[in-house]
């Protein structure tokens, strides 16, 4: 079996710790963090603009800062790729493939709940209304019209926590050491 020296470990650990993903721009392919991809307005490949907006609104309500950290670009990147390479916690919850169907259905169901409860769509909701909506989704085990709304909430919440706190920069925000052999690059989140 391969002998991992400290040097090779350090090199690969850097690669793995950053969550820098390959995004395609008109000018070429770049290695960007999801936050950088959002800042550069990299076009989404899988999510529709409407679905992305809903996911972003919900994600920002669940964990403020998730938008700037590139939640929707992270999701779009993962949903557009090979599911075997997906970095989503949906894997652990045995969400059926394709994952994009689950996120699209979750966005639609959330929108339907918003319309029914507040008489308006998620895009038009105030911060307080969004908070009420998310609270209704966060009841453990919740199912609405046959859709596992709590599972959707759990996955989206975990995705938001991943991009905000699951990286070296996120650990730094919490004032805890990343505890790898090396200090990874600090490009995450600019």
């Amino acid at each position, binding site marked *: 079996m391969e002998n991992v020296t400290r040097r090779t470990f350090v090199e690969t650990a850097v690669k793995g710790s950053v*969550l820098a993903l390959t995004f395609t721009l008109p000018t070429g392919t770049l290695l960007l963090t999801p936050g950088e991809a959002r800042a550069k307005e990299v076009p989404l490949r899988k999510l529709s603009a409407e679905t992305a907006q809903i996911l972003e609104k919900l994600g920002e309500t669940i*964990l403020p800062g998730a938008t700037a950290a590139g939640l929707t670009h992270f999701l779009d990147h993962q949903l557009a790729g090979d599911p*075997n390479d997906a970095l989503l916690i949906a*894997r652990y919850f045995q969400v*059926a493939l394709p994952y994009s169907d689950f996120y699209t259905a979750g966005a639609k169901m959330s929108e339907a709940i918003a319309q029914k409860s507040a008489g308006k769509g998620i895009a038009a909701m105030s911060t307080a209304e969004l908070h009420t909506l998310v609270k209704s989704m966060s009841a453990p085990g919740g199912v609405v019209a046959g859709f596992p709304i709590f599972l959707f909430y759990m996955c989206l919440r975990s995705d938001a926590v991943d991009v905000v706190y699951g*990286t070296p920069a996120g650990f730094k925000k919490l004032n805890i050491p990343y505890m790898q*052999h090396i200090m990874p690059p600090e490009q995450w989140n600019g």
Partner: protein
Amino acid sequence: MDKVMEAVDVVIVGAGAAGSVYAAVLAEAGKSVLVLERGPARKLSDLYSSQIWARRLKWSSPEVVETGPDTIWFNFNAGRGYGGAAIHHYAVWPRMHAEDFREKSLYGKGLDWPFEYGELRPHYDKVQRDVGMSGDATKEIWRPPGDPYPLPPVLVTNHGKVLARGFEALKMHTAPIPMAVLSQPYNGRPACIWDGWCDAGCPIGALANPLVVYFARALKAGARMQSDSAVSRVLTDATGEKVTGVEYYTSTGDKVIQPASAVVLCAFTVENSRILLNSANSAHPHGVGNSSGLVGRYLMVHPAVSISGMFNEDMENYSGATGGQLLCQDVYPKKSDPGGAFGSRQWEIGLALKPNDLLGIAMTNPTIFGAELHKFMADGARFMGSMVGVCEDQPVRDNRIEPDTKQDRFGMPLARIVYKQSDDGRKLWQTAAAEGVKIFKAAGARDAWPGPPAGQHIMGGTILGTDRTNSVLNATSQSHDVQNLFVGGPGTFPTSSSVNSTFTVHAVAMKGAHHLVGNWSSLKG
């Protein structure tokens, strides 16, 4: 026309813990060994220190059809690719106790193993020398007889010390947790740096995952490993008395026949049963090795409860091993449950915490969101304590793995899971949840709460026993029906105990592998 490969002595299906032991023992005995793995190849340098990237160590799609009423948490517990589930396991390696092997005889509950603890002890002792275990046997007052650990205990931070106070206040004992993690350099491998990335895979080799110890030895002895090879069936001769090899599919969908003198199935609990059931032929109409009708039966999962709490002192919870720092088995005696449930329990104390992922800080209370979640994360990063209670599940015949009507991309039936947690297991979980909160409060927690019911370690389906009236395999993990067919992994366990399964997986595999080598001329096909 199917492609037929050159025959090997032994084909091992699955590149996880059990497969690694069989591969090393057989290759070092001079046998030609081929290990076929359904998932991808993997090197140690692929193991990134990130809970996010570590998700690639597990399957992406629902690999089984879980029909309930309870889940076995297949995707979280199983592993994908070289190293199998043991590539992301926590390396908590307590031994099973003597009574775990004789529950039916002693208590009239569960099943008996076809051997007693004493017969497995030398294999436990050998494995712990091979891998370099850390611990303090003298402090484990519950531990069955065995050699001392070769290395001193793992790191105990303030996290472990604070939680130990709670146990002491309730007159309970703790001991350094026995771990297959190096507290000091050992056999050319470096010591752990206590970075808490165990379940993301240990790239420095301080944790004894299969790539580090037994597969390294197997490859050195000439064994070959082949990824992206999905074994679909075990093949037998016309009489059905001997296996002749396996059939597998490549990633491009080509069907290949791999002849072998012996086959060892080590594809984890569910897949081993699935392959045997899908291998039905005229000589084995209900599945190869299934004259007992028990292939797929007695599926078990440890009911597990996470206890989380906030303290008023810095817990240093970012450091240490993911599996914990201390162990308590005061609640191991089978009849110690105050509610009358049968079975054992244990506590793994002081698990290193990361902010994200299923066992991370955020997920300990998923109902918190918004600005409160940021506060919770900041609080938890410094003040959260964590431990896990593991409970025994009972072997129930109706809990099973069976072929589903849905098929995989090669046209083979997927495995359907029918599982309901045993009544005893459910009651033990409830006792543990209440007890855990009490311990945290006694340790000074300002708040403490149990997580939702969860399951760890999938066992059963191809259980050991004395004969085909009660089991699929004999005491050496050999099929009762087909003499050159062996099975490894936690699926061989007739009872679950409440200890983590990987150490026993290694020991049982070591026993079987040595039997196969020692009786090669009479067993091979």
